[in-house]
Protein backbone atom coordinates (compact mmCIF):
# COMPACT_ATOMS: atom_id res chain seq x y z
CA UNK A 1 0.00 0.00 0.00
CA UNK A 2 2.71 2.45 0.98
CA UNK A 3 4.59 2.00 -2.29
CA UNK A 4 1.44 2.69 -4.28
CA UNK A 5 0.81 5.89 -2.33
CA UNK A 6 4.30 7.05 -3.16
CA UNK A 7 3.80 6.07 -6.79
CA UNK A 8 0.60 8.08 -7.09
CA UNK A 9 2.25 11.08 -5.47
CA UNK A 10 5.14 10.85 -7.92
CA UNK A 11 2.78 10.69 -10.89
CA UNK A 12 0.82 13.64 -9.68
CA UNK A 13 3.97 15.74 -9.27
CA UNK A 14 5.08 14.81 -12.78
CA UNK A 15 1.73 15.77 -14.29
CA UNK A 16 1.84 19.05 -12.42
CA UNK A 17 5.23 19.82 -13.93
CA UNK A 18 3.86 19.10 -17.40
CA UNK A 19 0.96 21.40 -16.64
CA UNK A 20 3.34 24.19 -15.71
CA UNK A 21 5.15 23.77 -19.01
CA UNK A 22 2.03 23.68 -21.15
CA UNK A 23 0.68 26.72 -19.35
CA UNK A 24 3.88 28.62 -19.95
CA UNK A 25 3.81 27.62 -23.62
CA UNK A 26 0.23 28.76 -23.86
CA UNK A 27 1.14 32.17 -22.47
CA UNK A 28 4.16 32.53 -24.74
CA UNK A 29 2.05 31.60 -27.76
CA UNK A 30 -0.59 34.14 -26.74
CA UNK A 31 1.90 36.99 -26.64
CA UNK A 32 3.51 35.94 -29.91
CA UNK A 33 0.10 35.69 -31.49
CA UNK A 34 -0.65 39.22 -30.45
CA UNK A 35 2.53 40.50 -32.09
CA UNK A 36 1.77 38.51 -35.25
CA UNK A 37 -1.75 39.91 -35.39
CA UNK A 38 -0.47 43.47 -35.09
CA UNK A 39 1.90 42.76 -37.98
CA UNK A 40 -0.97 41.42 -40.05
CA UNK A 41 -3.09 44.43 -39.24
CA UNK A 42 -0.32 46.84 -40.23
CA UNK A 43 0.20 45.07 -43.51
CA UNK A 44 -3.42 45.34 -44.58
CA UNK A 45 -3.39 48.91 -46.01
CA UNK A 46 -0.31 48.18 -48.10
CA UNK A 47 -1.69 44.91 -49.43
CA UNK A 48 -5.10 46.41 -50.12
CA UNK A 49 -3.71 49.35 -52.08
CA UNK A 50 -1.40 47.19 -54.13
CA UNK A 51 -4.13 44.71 -54.99
CA UNK A 52 -6.33 47.56 -56.11
CA UNK A 53 -3.72 48.95 -58.47
CA UNK A 54 -2.75 45.51 -59.69
CA UNK A 55 -6.24 44.47 -60.61
CA UNK A 56 -6.99 47.80 -62.26
CA UNK A 57 -3.78 47.62 -64.27
CA UNK A 58 -4.06 43.97 -65.22
CA UNK A 59 -7.60 44.68 -66.37
CA UNK A 60 -6.41 47.48 -68.63
CA UNK A 61 -3.32 45.95 -70.09
CA UNK A 62 -3.91 43.09 -72.46
CA UNK A 63 -0.33 42.06 -72.27
CA UNK A 64 1.20 39.13 -74.01
CA UNK A 65 4.83 40.03 -73.59
CA UNK A 66 5.09 40.01 -69.83
CA UNK A 67 6.88 36.78 -68.91
CA UNK A 68 5.07 36.51 -65.59
CA UNK A 69 1.70 36.42 -67.28
CA UNK A 70 2.68 33.77 -69.79
CA UNK A 71 0.34 30.80 -69.92
CA UNK A 72 2.16 27.61 -70.87
CA UNK A 73 1.46 23.96 -70.44
CA UNK A 74 4.42 21.69 -70.34
CA UNK A 75 3.13 20.01 -67.23
CA UNK A 76 5.46 21.21 -64.51
CA UNK A 77 4.09 22.73 -61.36
CA UNK A 78 5.65 24.28 -58.29
CA UNK A 79 4.02 24.66 -54.90
CA UNK A 80 5.19 26.92 -52.11
CA UNK A 81 4.15 25.16 -48.93
CA UNK A 82 4.13 27.04 -45.66
CA UNK A 83 4.26 25.24 -42.34
CA UNK A 84 5.77 26.02 -38.97
CA UNK A 85 9.21 25.00 -37.76
CA UNK A 86 8.00 23.59 -34.48
CA UNK A 87 5.29 21.16 -33.56
CA UNK A 88 2.96 21.07 -30.57
CA UNK A 89 0.33 23.04 -32.40
CA UNK A 90 -2.40 20.51 -33.05
CA UNK A 91 -3.29 19.70 -36.62
CA UNK A 92 -1.90 22.96 -37.93
CA UNK A 93 0.89 21.50 -40.05
CA UNK A 94 -0.84 18.23 -40.83
CA UNK A 95 -3.67 20.10 -42.53
CA UNK A 96 -1.36 21.91 -44.93
CA UNK A 97 0.67 18.78 -45.58
CA UNK A 98 -2.48 16.82 -46.38
CA UNK A 99 -3.74 19.55 -48.68
CA UNK A 100 -0.44 19.58 -50.57
CA UNK A 101 -0.40 15.77 -50.77
CA UNK A 102 -3.89 15.70 -52.18
CA UNK A 103 -3.09 18.44 -54.67
CA UNK A 104 0.10 16.72 -55.79
CA UNK A 105 -1.68 13.42 -56.20
CA UNK A 106 -4.41 14.99 -58.32
CA UNK A 107 -1.88 16.78 -60.53
CA UNK A 108 0.24 13.70 -60.93
CA UNK A 109 -2.82 11.78 -62.00
CA UNK A 110 -3.07 14.31 -64.82
CA UNK A 111 0.49 13.44 -65.73
CA UNK A 112 2.11 16.56 -64.31
CA UNK A 113 5.31 16.97 -62.37
CA UNK A 114 5.21 18.64 -59.00
CA UNK A 115 8.06 20.18 -57.05
CA UNK A 116 7.96 22.03 -53.76
CA UNK A 117 9.43 25.07 -52.08
CA UNK A 118 9.16 24.38 -48.38
CA UNK A 119 8.86 27.13 -45.81
CA UNK A 120 9.06 25.69 -42.31
CA UNK A 121 10.72 22.56 -41.03
CA UNK A 122 7.63 20.43 -40.47
CA UNK A 123 6.53 20.50 -44.09
CA UNK A 124 10.04 19.95 -45.36
CA UNK A 125 10.55 16.92 -43.12
CA UNK A 126 7.34 15.28 -44.16
CA UNK A 127 8.03 15.62 -47.90
CA UNK A 128 11.76 15.11 -47.85
CA UNK A 129 11.55 11.55 -49.13
CA UNK A 130 8.39 11.81 -51.18
CA UNK A 131 8.69 14.86 -53.41
CA UNK A 132 11.30 17.02 -55.05
CA UNK A 133 12.04 20.00 -52.85
CA UNK A 134 13.67 22.72 -54.89
CA UNK A 135 14.05 25.23 -52.11
CA UNK A 136 13.67 25.45 -48.38
CA UNK A 137 13.40 28.16 -45.78
CA UNK A 138 13.93 26.71 -42.33
CA UNK A 139 13.97 28.52 -38.99
CA UNK A 140 13.06 31.79 -40.67
CA UNK A 141 9.57 32.28 -39.33
CA UNK A 142 10.48 33.28 -35.81
CA UNK A 143 11.64 36.62 -37.13
CA UNK A 144 11.00 37.84 -40.65
CA UNK A 145 10.04 40.83 -42.73
CA UNK A 146 9.17 41.44 -46.36
CA UNK A 147 12.72 40.56 -47.42
CA UNK A 148 11.96 36.88 -46.75
CA UNK A 149 9.03 37.13 -49.16
CA UNK A 150 11.34 38.83 -51.65
CA UNK A 151 13.82 35.97 -51.43
CA UNK A 152 11.14 33.34 -51.88
CA UNK A 153 9.61 35.26 -54.79
CA UNK A 154 12.98 35.62 -56.50
CA UNK A 155 13.64 31.93 -56.20
CA UNK A 156 10.27 31.18 -57.75
CA UNK A 157 10.31 33.83 -60.47
CA UNK A 158 13.58 33.15 -62.25
CA UNK A 159 12.89 29.50 -63.16
CA UNK A 160 9.38 30.51 -64.19
CA UNK A 161 10.72 33.14 -66.55
CA UNK A 162 13.24 30.60 -67.84
CA UNK A 163 10.36 28.29 -68.65
CA UNK A 164 11.34 25.56 -66.22
CA UNK A 165 7.82 25.29 -64.89
CA UNK A 166 4.41 26.70 -65.78
CA UNK A 167 2.33 27.18 -62.71
CA UNK A 168 3.10 28.34 -59.21
CA UNK A 169 0.80 27.69 -56.29
CA UNK A 170 0.93 28.76 -52.69
CA UNK A 171 -0.50 26.61 -49.90
CA UNK A 172 -0.79 27.92 -46.35
CA UNK A 173 -3.13 28.04 -43.39
CA UNK A 174 -5.50 30.93 -43.70
CA UNK A 175 -5.92 32.68 -40.38
CA UNK A 176 -9.65 32.86 -39.77
CA UNK A 177 -9.58 33.23 -36.01
CA UNK A 178 -7.42 32.21 -33.10
CA UNK A 179 -9.11 28.83 -32.99
CA UNK A 180 -9.63 28.28 -36.69
CA UNK A 181 -7.10 28.01 -39.49
CA UNK A 182 -7.90 26.50 -42.82
CA UNK A 183 -5.47 25.45 -45.55
CA UNK A 184 -5.92 27.36 -48.79
CA UNK A 185 -4.33 26.85 -52.20
CA UNK A 186 -3.79 30.00 -54.28
CA UNK A 187 -2.39 30.24 -57.78
CA UNK A 188 0.37 32.83 -58.01
CA UNK A 189 1.72 32.35 -61.53
CA UNK A 190 0.86 32.98 -64.25
CA UNK A 191 -0.47 36.09 -62.63
CA UNK A 192 -3.10 36.83 -65.25
CA UNK A 193 -6.83 36.69 -64.85
CA UNK A 194 -6.61 37.69 -61.23
CA UNK A 195 -8.86 40.61 -61.89
CA UNK A 196 -11.82 39.25 -60.00
CA UNK A 197 -14.12 40.67 -62.60
CA UNK A 198 -14.81 43.66 -60.44
CA UNK A 199 -15.94 46.78 -62.19
CA UNK A 200 -13.14 49.21 -62.65
CA UNK A 201 -13.81 52.69 -61.33
CA UNK A 202 -14.17 55.18 -64.14
CA UNK A 203 -11.85 57.68 -62.50
CA UNK A 204 -8.90 55.36 -62.97
CA UNK A 205 -9.07 55.94 -66.69
CA UNK A 206 -7.80 59.48 -66.29
CA UNK A 207 -4.40 58.56 -64.94
CA UNK A 208 -1.19 59.39 -66.64
CA UNK A 209 1.00 56.29 -66.50
CA UNK A 210 4.69 56.55 -66.08
CA UNK A 211 6.36 54.57 -67.58
CA UNK A 212 3.81 52.97 -69.90
CA UNK A 213 0.97 50.90 -68.48
CA UNK A 214 2.63 47.73 -69.56
CA UNK A 215 5.99 48.55 -68.03
CA UNK A 216 4.28 49.63 -64.87
CA UNK A 217 2.48 46.32 -64.75
CA UNK A 218 5.78 44.52 -65.20
CA UNK A 219 7.03 46.47 -62.20
CA UNK A 220 3.98 45.74 -60.11
CA UNK A 221 3.55 42.00 -60.77
CA UNK A 222 6.62 41.02 -58.71
CA UNK A 223 5.47 43.36 -55.96
CA UNK A 224 2.10 41.72 -56.09
CA UNK A 225 3.69 38.27 -55.75
CA UNK A 226 5.71 39.43 -52.78
CA UNK A 227 2.55 40.76 -51.17
CA UNK A 228 0.75 37.42 -51.55
CA UNK A 229 3.74 35.49 -50.23
CA UNK A 230 4.21 37.88 -47.32
CA UNK A 231 0.53 37.60 -46.53
CA UNK A 232 0.90 33.82 -46.45
CA UNK A 233 3.90 34.10 -44.15
CA UNK A 234 2.07 36.43 -41.79
CA UNK A 235 -1.00 34.22 -41.64
CA UNK A 236 1.13 31.13 -41.13
CA UNK A 237 2.96 32.69 -38.23
CA UNK A 238 -0.21 34.03 -36.61
CA UNK A 239 -1.97 30.72 -37.23
CA UNK A 240 0.87 28.71 -35.74
CA UNK A 241 0.74 30.67 -32.50
CA UNK A 242 -3.05 30.56 -32.43
CA UNK A 243 -3.07 26.81 -32.95
CA UNK A 244 -0.38 26.31 -30.33
CA UNK A 245 -2.25 28.48 -27.86
CA UNK A 246 -5.40 26.40 -28.28
CA UNK A 247 -3.66 23.04 -28.12
CA UNK A 248 -1.62 24.06 -25.08
CA UNK A 249 -4.77 25.31 -23.42
CA UNK A 250 -6.34 21.89 -23.99
CA UNK A 251 -3.22 20.18 -22.69
CA UNK A 252 -3.28 22.33 -19.56
CA UNK A 253 -6.87 21.48 -18.77
CA UNK A 254 -6.19 17.79 -19.45
CA UNK A 255 -3.36 17.96 -16.94
CA UNK A 256 -5.63 19.58 -14.42
CA UNK A 257 -8.18 16.81 -14.86
CA UNK A 258 -5.51 14.20 -14.41
CA UNK A 259 -4.19 15.86 -11.29
CA UNK A 260 -7.66 15.92 -9.88
CA UNK A 261 -8.24 12.24 -10.52
CA UNK A 262 -4.80 11.37 -9.16
CA UNK A 263 -5.46 13.39 -6.03
CA UNK A 264 -8.70 11.52 -5.56
CA UNK A 265 -6.94 8.21 -6.04
CA UNK A 266 -4.23 9.27 -3.63
CA UNK A 267 -6.76 10.25 -0.98
CA UNK A 268 -8.75 7.06 -1.26
CA UNK A 269 -5.58 4.97 -1.15
CA UNK A 270 -4.44 6.88 1.92
CA UNK A 271 -7.87 6.39 3.49
CA UNK A 272 -7.69 2.69 2.72
CA UNK A 273 -4.26 2.46 4.31
CA UNK A 274 -5.47 4.21 7.48
CA UNK A 275 -8.52 2.00 7.68
CA UNK A 276 -6.40 -1.11 7.29
CA UNK A 277 -4.07 0.07 10.04
CA UNK A 278 -7.00 0.83 12.35
CA UNK A 279 -8.49 -2.56 11.69
CA UNK A 280 -5.20 -4.11 12.74
CA UNK A 281 -5.14 -2.16 15.99
CA UNK A 282 -8.82 -2.81 16.76
CA UNK A 283 -8.39 -6.45 15.90
CA UNK A 284 -5.37 -6.64 18.21
CA UNK A 285 -7.12 -5.03 21.21
CA UNK A 286 -10.21 -7.16 20.72
CA UNK A 287 -8.07 -10.25 20.79
CA UNK A 288 -6.29 -9.06 23.95
CA UNK A 289 -9.51 -8.14 25.79
CA UNK A 290 -11.10 -11.43 24.81
CA UNK A 291 -8.15 -13.20 26.45
CA UNK A 292 -8.28 -11.10 29.61
Amino acid at each position, binding site marked *: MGASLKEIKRQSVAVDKTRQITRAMNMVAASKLKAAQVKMENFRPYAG*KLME*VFSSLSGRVVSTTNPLLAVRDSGRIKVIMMTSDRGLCGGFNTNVIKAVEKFARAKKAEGKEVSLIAVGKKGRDSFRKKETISGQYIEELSRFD*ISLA*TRIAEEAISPFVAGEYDELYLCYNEFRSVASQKPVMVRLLPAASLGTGEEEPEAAAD*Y*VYEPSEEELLAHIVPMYLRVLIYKGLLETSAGEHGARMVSMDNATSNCEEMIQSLTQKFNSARQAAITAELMDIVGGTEALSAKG
Partner: protein
Amino acid sequence: MADDLMLEIVTPDRLAFSDVVEEVTLSGSEGEFGVLVGHVPLLSSIKIGELNYTKDNKKAYYLVGEGYAEITNLKATVLVESIEEAGSIIVEEAKRAKESAEARLVGMDKDDPDYEKVKKSLDMAETRLKVAEKM
Protein backbone atom coordinates in the same frame (compact mmCIF):
# COMPACT_ATOMS: atom_id res chain seq x y z
CA MET B 1 -4.24 75.60 -46.34
CA ALA B 2 -5.79 75.07 -49.71
CA ASP B 3 -2.35 74.80 -51.25
CA ASP B 4 -1.38 71.71 -49.37
CA LEU B 5 -0.99 68.20 -50.59
CA MET B 6 -1.92 65.20 -48.54
CA LEU B 7 1.01 62.80 -48.47
CA GLU B 8 0.70 59.19 -47.38
CA ILE B 9 3.60 56.78 -47.30
CA VAL B 10 2.66 53.14 -46.77
CA THR B 11 5.12 50.30 -46.19
CA PRO B 12 4.40 46.62 -45.47
CA ASP B 13 5.03 47.25 -41.77
CA ARG B 14 2.99 50.35 -41.18
CA LEU B 15 1.52 53.58 -42.39
CA ALA B 16 4.86 55.36 -42.21
CA PHE B 17 3.71 58.90 -42.85
CA SER B 18 0.43 60.73 -43.19
CA ASP B 19 0.31 64.50 -43.16
CA VAL B 20 -0.21 67.55 -45.33
CA VAL B 21 2.93 68.86 -47.03
CA GLU B 22 3.72 71.66 -49.45
CA GLU B 23 5.67 69.59 -51.92
CA VAL B 24 7.06 66.13 -52.34
CA THR B 25 9.89 64.95 -54.60
CA LEU B 26 9.99 61.33 -55.71
CA SER B 27 12.46 59.19 -57.65
CA GLY B 28 10.40 57.73 -60.45
CA SER B 29 11.74 55.15 -62.83
CA GLU B 30 11.88 57.90 -65.46
CA GLY B 31 13.72 60.29 -63.18
CA GLU B 32 13.07 62.56 -60.25
CA PHE B 33 9.85 64.50 -60.19
CA GLY B 34 8.19 66.97 -57.86
CA VAL B 35 4.54 66.96 -56.93
CA LEU B 36 2.53 69.95 -55.85
CA VAL B 37 -1.15 70.14 -55.12
CA GLY B 38 -3.22 70.04 -58.29
CA HIS B 39 -0.91 67.62 -60.07
CA VAL B 40 -2.46 65.61 -62.89
CA PRO B 41 -3.54 62.15 -61.78
CA LEU B 42 -0.50 59.95 -62.19
CA LEU B 43 0.54 56.43 -61.51
CA SER B 44 4.29 56.01 -61.52
CA SER B 45 6.72 53.38 -60.42
CA ILE B 46 9.30 54.34 -57.83
CA LYS B 47 12.84 53.07 -57.77
CA ILE B 48 15.17 52.83 -54.82
CA GLY B 49 16.20 56.36 -54.06
CA GLU B 50 15.50 59.59 -52.34
CA LEU B 51 12.16 60.94 -51.27
CA ASN B 52 11.88 64.37 -49.78
CA TYR B 53 9.02 66.59 -48.80
CA THR B 54 8.70 70.19 -47.73
CA LYS B 55 6.58 71.08 -44.78
CA ASP B 56 6.60 74.52 -43.14
CA ASN B 57 9.48 75.43 -45.45
CA LYS B 58 11.59 72.65 -44.02
CA LYS B 59 12.77 69.72 -46.04
CA ALA B 60 12.87 66.16 -44.77
CA TYR B 61 14.84 63.45 -46.53
CA TYR B 62 14.17 59.75 -46.70
CA LEU B 63 15.55 56.74 -48.49
CA VAL B 64 12.80 54.57 -49.93
CA GLY B 65 12.75 51.15 -51.53
CA GLU B 66 10.95 49.97 -54.62
CA GLY B 67 7.28 50.71 -55.09
CA TYR B 68 4.92 53.02 -56.85
CA ALA B 69 3.10 56.30 -56.31
CA GLU B 70 -0.50 57.11 -57.02
CA ILE B 71 -1.11 60.81 -57.36
CA THR B 72 -4.43 62.55 -57.58
CA ASN B 73 -5.35 66.22 -57.38
CA LEU B 74 -5.08 66.55 -53.64
CA LYS B 75 -3.32 63.45 -52.49
CA ALA B 76 -0.15 61.48 -53.10
CA THR B 77 -0.08 57.87 -51.96
CA VAL B 78 3.36 56.30 -51.99
CA LEU B 79 3.65 52.54 -51.57
CA VAL B 80 7.21 51.44 -50.98
CA GLU B 81 8.74 48.31 -49.55
CA SER B 82 10.97 50.12 -47.10
CA ILE B 83 11.68 53.58 -45.76
CA GLU B 84 14.61 54.99 -43.81
CA GLU B 85 14.99 58.44 -42.43
CA ALA B 86 18.12 60.10 -43.80
CA GLY B 87 19.23 60.84 -40.24
CA SER B 88 19.12 57.20 -39.26
CA ILE B 89 21.50 56.07 -41.98
CA ILE B 90 24.83 54.99 -40.56
CA VAL B 91 27.37 56.43 -42.98
CA GLU B 92 30.16 54.12 -41.87
CA GLU B 93 28.07 51.07 -42.49
CA ALA B 94 26.96 52.23 -45.92
CA LYS B 95 30.57 52.99 -46.83
CA ARG B 96 31.64 49.55 -45.78
CA ALA B 97 28.81 47.95 -47.77
CA LYS B 98 29.82 49.98 -50.79
CA GLU B 99 33.46 49.01 -50.50
CA SER B 100 32.74 45.33 -50.11
CA ALA B 101 30.36 45.37 -53.07
CA GLU B 102 32.94 47.16 -55.18
CA ALA B 103 35.60 44.68 -54.17
CA ARG B 104 33.34 41.79 -55.15
CA LEU B 105 32.52 43.32 -58.50
CA VAL B 106 36.18 43.51 -59.45
CA GLY B 107 36.94 40.56 -61.66
CA MET B 108 33.37 39.32 -61.53
CA ASP B 109 31.91 38.01 -64.74
CA LYS B 110 28.84 39.80 -66.02
CA ASP B 111 27.15 36.44 -66.51
CA ASP B 112 27.70 35.46 -62.92
CA PRO B 113 24.31 34.78 -61.30
CA ASP B 114 25.33 36.97 -58.38
CA TYR B 115 26.35 39.90 -60.53
CA GLU B 116 22.93 41.55 -60.54
CA LYS B 117 22.58 41.10 -56.81
CA VAL B 118 25.94 42.63 -55.99
CA LYS B 119 25.28 45.45 -58.42
CA LYS B 120 21.98 46.12 -56.70
CA SER B 121 23.54 46.23 -53.26
CA LEU B 122 26.19 48.61 -54.60
CA ASP B 123 23.47 50.89 -55.96
CA MET B 124 21.66 50.71 -52.65
CA ALA B 125 24.80 51.63 -50.70
CA GLU B 126 25.58 54.52 -53.05
CA THR B 127 22.05 55.87 -52.82
CA ARG B 128 22.22 55.56 -49.04
CA LEU B 129 25.38 57.62 -48.93
CA LYS B 130 23.92 60.24 -51.24
CA VAL B 131 20.80 60.61 -49.12
CA ALA B 132 22.81 60.65 -45.90
CA GLU B 133 24.88 63.54 -47.19
CA LYS B 134 21.80 65.74 -47.40
CA MET B 135 21.45 65.77 -43.65
